[in-house]
Each structure stands twice: as C-alpha cells, then as structure tokens.
C-alpha cells in the first residue's frame, strides 16, 4: 500500500486534532461561520466520530448582517445532520443599533469579537474550534494549532506554548480556554479540492449567479436586503458575481465571475491574482490589524 495523498494527510491530521479535543477538553464547541472552511470542518467532525455524532455543539456568532441565504443554509444543514447548533447574537449591540455602515471597526469588535467572548462565557466553553488557516494572513501563519487564551480571551503572540510533534497541550486553568485550528495546515486550494473530492455541500453564494450589487471602494457589495444604504451616485446593478469568502454582506466583496461549478471555481482559485482575504474589507484597515484583533479575542 502506498503513501497517503496530500489531502489524506491533511484530513488525518485534522481528525486527530478534533478527536484529541473531544477526549481531553472538558467543554468543547465548534465555531461555525457557514463558510467553506466551516463546511469542511463540520464534515471532518462528522467523520472523526462516526458512527457517533460529534460530542459537542456548534456555535454560530450571528452579527445579524449575514447573507440571508447563509442563515437558511445553516439551519437546514444542522437539521439534516442532527447536530446541536447554537446561535449567539450580541443583543446589547443590536439595541444600540451597531451596524457595519456607520461603525466600521467598532462594529466588528462589538458584533463579532465581543459577541464571541460573551457566548463563550455564557456557556462556559473551555475549547473552541475555529476554521482559521495559516495561509490566510501573516499573524495566523504564526499561530499554534492549540492556541491558548487567557481569562480575558486574549492571545499573547510573543509567549505561545511550544507545540511539539502532535502532543497537544490542552491544559488550562479556570476561565481560560484554548482555540483549536484543525485546518491550520490547509491552503485555500486544499479546501476546494477536498470539497470536490468529498462532495461537501457549500452555500450557493460561492457559485456565480446574477445578483444585485453596488461597486464601492473597489469592492463589489451585494444588496442583500433593504438595510443596505446607497451612497450618492451609487446604483444597484445586476451582475454575475460569486464570493470567495462569506461573512457580513456589507463587508464581503464579491468578484465578477461566471464560475458555476466546483471545477470552474477551483480553476479560478488556482489562477487567482489576489489572495482571498483582500475581499474581506476589515483586513485592509492597517498592517497588523488581524494580530491586534486576535490579541483582543477575535478568532
């Protein structure tokens, strides 16, 4: 019998990590953000424990500004797979009317980072899986697979625990937690090829379709509902677009594309001229912005 393929190796590594957490951590949760990476992570969790269901719940931190289709997809998948899907919304932020148009970085902090911390505190989770990959961004490239967070959910990049071989250290004191990244060593191409190989269902937002959009600051933003305020001079156009990452619709840039099949998407990805995070508006704010947010508790 020959060696394992590249994808088989990545799959085995991720399943090993997911099982280690289930075996060693007191109260794990898997963060689910509905995107392609989450879809892969969910698929791996289903495989890791088969014929058992994953012995932990899934958590979606909802900013209330997600694409409508994402929420439908989330609820349907959870039902089909028979998994426990928790949703958390920072109601305080909703009351204050925090939105991505008026509040910029504060919006991300309040509706994502703070909401996540509140959710982890509310349920007392001691370990949280995230779908982050090291090829996404420079500070992620430095992060451990088991990434320790202090009682304020903060990351200390200058003092990470050594992580040797696959001997993961999940030990924590009260109120501390670990964030665990089973997809650390996957690249965007690996994710797509695995989705194709395993026939994993992903939201149709990834496939090109004619959608109502506006062009804003070099990004293509979809008008998903009537909360989208048009700026002077902007007009809604109908274009064939798709999304390389999914998030809050006002903050997620699409790209013009006619790729309607997985193979076409993979072709586009392989020949892509810009890395996927440029279509996320928040990462462009300032050099080191991701690291700063992670120190504050962001995934």
């Amino acid at each position, binding site marked *: 019998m020959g060696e394992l393929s590249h994808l088989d190796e990545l*799959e*085995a590594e991720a399943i090993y990590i997911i099982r280690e957490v289930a075996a060693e951590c007191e109260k794990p949760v898997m963060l689910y953000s509905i995107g392609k990476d989450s879809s892969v992570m969910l698929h791996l969790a289903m495989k890791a424990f*088969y*014929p058992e269901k994953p012995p932990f719940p899934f958590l979606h931190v909802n900013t209330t500004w997600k694409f409508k289709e994402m929420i439908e997809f989330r609820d349907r998948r959870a039902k089909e797979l028979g998994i426990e899907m928790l949703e958390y919304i920072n109601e305080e932020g909703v009351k204050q009317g925090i939105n991505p148009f008026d509040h910029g970085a504060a919006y991300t902090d309040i509706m994502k980072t703070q909401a996540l911390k509140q959710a982890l505190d509310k349920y007392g989770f001691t370990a949280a899986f995230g779908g982050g990959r090291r090829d996404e961004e420079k*500070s992620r*490239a430095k992060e*451990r697979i088991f990434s320790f967070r202090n009682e304020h959910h903060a990351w200390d990049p200058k003092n990470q625990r050594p992580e040797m071989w696959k001997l993961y*250290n999940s030990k924590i004191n009260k109120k501390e937690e670990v964030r665990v990244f089973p997809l650390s060593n996957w690249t965007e*191409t690996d994710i797509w090829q695995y989705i194709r190989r395993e026939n994993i269902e992903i939201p149709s937002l990834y496939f090109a379709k004619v959608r109502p959009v506006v062009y804003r600051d070099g990004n293509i933003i979809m008008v998903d509902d009537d909360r989208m305020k048009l700026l002077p001079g902007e007009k809604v156009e109908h274009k064939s677009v798709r999304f390389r990452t999914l998030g809050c619709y006002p903050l997620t840039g699409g790209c013009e594309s006619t790729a309607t099949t997985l193979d076409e998407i993979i072709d586009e990805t392989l020949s892509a001229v810009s*890395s996927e995070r440029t279509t996320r508006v928040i990462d462009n704010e300032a050099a080191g912005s991701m690291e700063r947010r992670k120190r504050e508790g962001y995934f």
Partner: protein
Amino acid sequence: MSGLLKFITCGSVDDGKSTLIGHILYDSKLLYTDQEKALELDSKVGSRGGAIDYSLLLDGLMAEREQGITIDVAYRYFTTDKRSFIVADTPGHEEYTRNMAVGASFADLAVILIDAKQGVLVQTRRHARICSLMGIKYFVFAINKMDLVGYDEKRFREIEKQVEELTKELQLANVKLIPVSATEGDNVTKPSENIKWYQGETLLSYLENIDITEDDHEKGFYMPVQRVCRPDHTFRGFQGQIEDGQIHVGDEVTTLPSNETAKVKSIHVGDKESQVAKKGQPVTIQLDREVDVSRGCVLSVDASLLTASSITATLLWMDDEELRTGKNFFFKLGTKMIPAVVSSIEYAIDVNTGAKKEVSTLGKNEIAVCKITLADQIVVDEFKKHKTLGELILIDRITNMTSACGVVESIDTKEHGLYEGRIDRKVRAAMKGQKAVTVEFIKEGTIDRAFVEDVEKALSLQGRHTYLYAPTPNEDIDLVIKHLHRAGLVVLLLVDKKQADTITNKDEHYISDWNKTGLAANEVAKFIAKESAYSDIFVHERDYI
C-alpha cells in the same frame, strides 16, 4: 510528483533564513499580486534602501517587524510543478530556541543556513543538534551570503570542513552543502553565474527531488487509542491514528497495557467501512470481544511493544523556570497523560561541544539526559524504534506551560513482570476493604523488627491485610513495593536510612513521616488503620489525568 515535503529553515541570527524563503516564494511566482504589492510597499520603509526585503514576507508579528527579527515559527505553503511544500521558518536567537524546536518537531528536512563570513557558529551547532534530537534525518547546509565573500570557493571548502566535523559528531546521515546568496538569488531557484565551481543542484531543485520515504519493510501495526466510540450498546470502537503497519479485519491484536488479545471485527476509515487500513489513517476499530481498553492504551500486532513506569529520556528544557529534580509534571506520550516525576538529571549536554556536564538544575534551552518516573505503567518505547511512543512533553502542573519536550532513549526493563489484570487495585481494595499503602519504618532507637511486628499484630486485629517487608541489601525495593501494592496490601517497610534514600517512588500512598511524636506501637497501628481505610470513591480517568 513526489509527496509533500515539510522542512524548516534554521541557523544563527541574521544568517538570512526568512530572506531565503521569501526569495523562493517570490521567484517561484508563488505570491498573490496583493501580497507582492504589500511586500514592495513594506520594503520601501525597510533596511534594504527600497530594494525588496524578502524577509518581510515571513515576519508576520508586529513585534517582529518592529525589531527586524523572527520571534516565532511561521508556516508557509507553496507548490511547484514537482512538489508541495510546507516550510517552517524558525527564529535564530538563542532566546527563542524553543520556537525553533517547535518547527523542528514538525519537519522531515532541515535547511541550516551558515553565513559564509562567519562559518559554523554555536547557534548553528545548537540548531543542528536540536534538529537531530527531534528526529530530522535530512540536512541541507546552505552556505549563504557567498556574494559577501566574493563567491570564493576556498572559503566554501573551509566551511565544508567545519560542517563535516559537525556531521560526524552528531552522526547525521543525508547531508548536502549548497553555496547560495539569498539576497541576490544565487543557487536559490536558479543556477548561479557567479559560482561556476559549484556544479550541483540549486536549493529549490534539490528540495523538489529529494526522496524522504522510509523503506517500509513489514513493520508491525500499532495505534494509540484516542477515544472509545460508543454511539449505542451495540457498537464499541476504538478511535485513533495508525502509527505504523497495516490492519485487516480478522487480524488478532494485542491490547496494552492490559495484554489481552482479540480479533478485529470491523474497521472504519473515517466514516467508511473498510477491510484494511494503513499507516497514517484515522480509524475506528471494533474487536470481537470485550477488552480493557481506554484512551492512552495501545492496540498492536507484532510490534513487540513494552510497558514501563520509568524511562530515560533526552530533554530540551523550554520553561523560564529551572528544572530541579523531584519536580512533578503531567507527562504526555502518544495519547496518554499521567503524573510523573523527573527523578534525576543524569547529565547535561553542552550544545556547542557535545560534552557531558554534571548539573543539579537545568535552565531554559539546555539539553540533558534525565530519568523520569511515571505514576503508572504505560506503553512506551525508544524513539528510534517506535517514534510516536518515544516522543514526550512535560507540562507544568501549576502554570500548564509545556516545560520540556524530549525523546525516550531507554526504558527500564527491570519491570516487565508488572502487569495488572482485571482484578486491579480498585477491585482488590474493595475486596479487602482497605487501601494499599506503604509505611516506612527506619531502624533507629526503639524502631526495630519487634516494634513493627507489634504494629502488624495490632493492624491484623483490626482486619487489615498486611505484609512486613524488611529488604536485604541489593534488593529492588521500589519494584517489590509495586508488586505488594498490586496485591492490595498494607506494606510495613522496615529499612535503614541508606535504603530509604534509594526509594524513588514515594507517592501519596507512601507514608514516611508518621513518627515525629514518638508514638507507641498501638497508636501507630491506629494511625495506619486510618490512612489505609477503604473509601469507595471511584476514580474516573478524567480525574486521574
């Protein structure tokens, strides 16, 4: 196309590790245009006067970019026409050696950079030693900054001699030397016009072509159990990753440490049922009969595995706080986590010369051979025989820091007679209505054999099952006590002071300081009766680890 190659770059500070990798990524057109633009932009404010500073591609933390150094290991992913690569770019500063070791534990091959002006430095030797310790078998010494020594072959040959000495000392196999300039790009991805005297491959082409597959000659199957899968009462499967060999439905496996045998009833690879599974695959294995197996146990076929509770290991100390002997840790090996004590530091190894040094403590980034005593028998083997069962970490029980990593050099084979069957300590404790403890009596003053016999008589009257053990010189007292403990007995150990000092395993079941107030025999018996009182607290494995 060859398989995935995981490699690291290491070497001393400013030897140009990050620059080298940055250059490979840039030359190979492996950057997205926005990354390339960001790089060119960042370089304008950098130290290369507007020329591209390739290291900025790797140093991702704010503190790193501010200080112009690498603090932690960065992982980069790239694919050429011939191969996929994961490269871990590691820090050169001594202070961050542990982060370098993290990268080394992950890699199959090490690219060690040497500054042509400086030659082999202490840090070069340290890194080569750690790479070898962590199990790396393939080495490339990239003699960098050849442009700064006028591409001089004589200088290269001098360094080649130094590397040969190091290679001999560390017994490195598979060593390759390549003269390069990471900033100018000589022999990085393209053959150098400036180094005509070197006819070999460029660095990238060498990495693309090297074959790192091990010769897989009929190795025995083994799998450390990660968890037991029990969706309902009809299914009980053991989940884990196969570390070596293969397994078929119908094969007879041995369970360790319980040492039972059973046949494989079914195999799942992930969620698919299969007749066979091989090394590296995540599986769920059902056996045809009930066996005593839980997380931390190992399933094996012809792997000749052993169990032991004391080992000798080479440790890399990684904590800011010093290691002192007698310190208690959580010990993790394979999927097993148990309490352990570093019972002695045999000797430290000078990273520069390799000389053995006698030490009483071990500081950060030092390497030493230590003896470790474990709280229980675990399945363990020498690193060079069964890699996964020879890799370990020590976790501080208070700070939870990963304080050390290490590899098992030898296991204490004296103990192989120790097996605990289904009638284990818990069962015996329940049957006898007592907890097994050892009470140490040191011969001095009124404490003599007659006194202990009085104590034993009083204990017997209270229904305790006892054993008076007065070892003769040269007996392995630790081992005998372990056997008596397994029999569930209250051991009255009568020794002299010298013998008492040789006993290493003085855990919570070992009582030595009962006689501060000079109690009479029946008072001592009362005290021991209390200490050995049976409590039917079920020890859940979670509490145990």
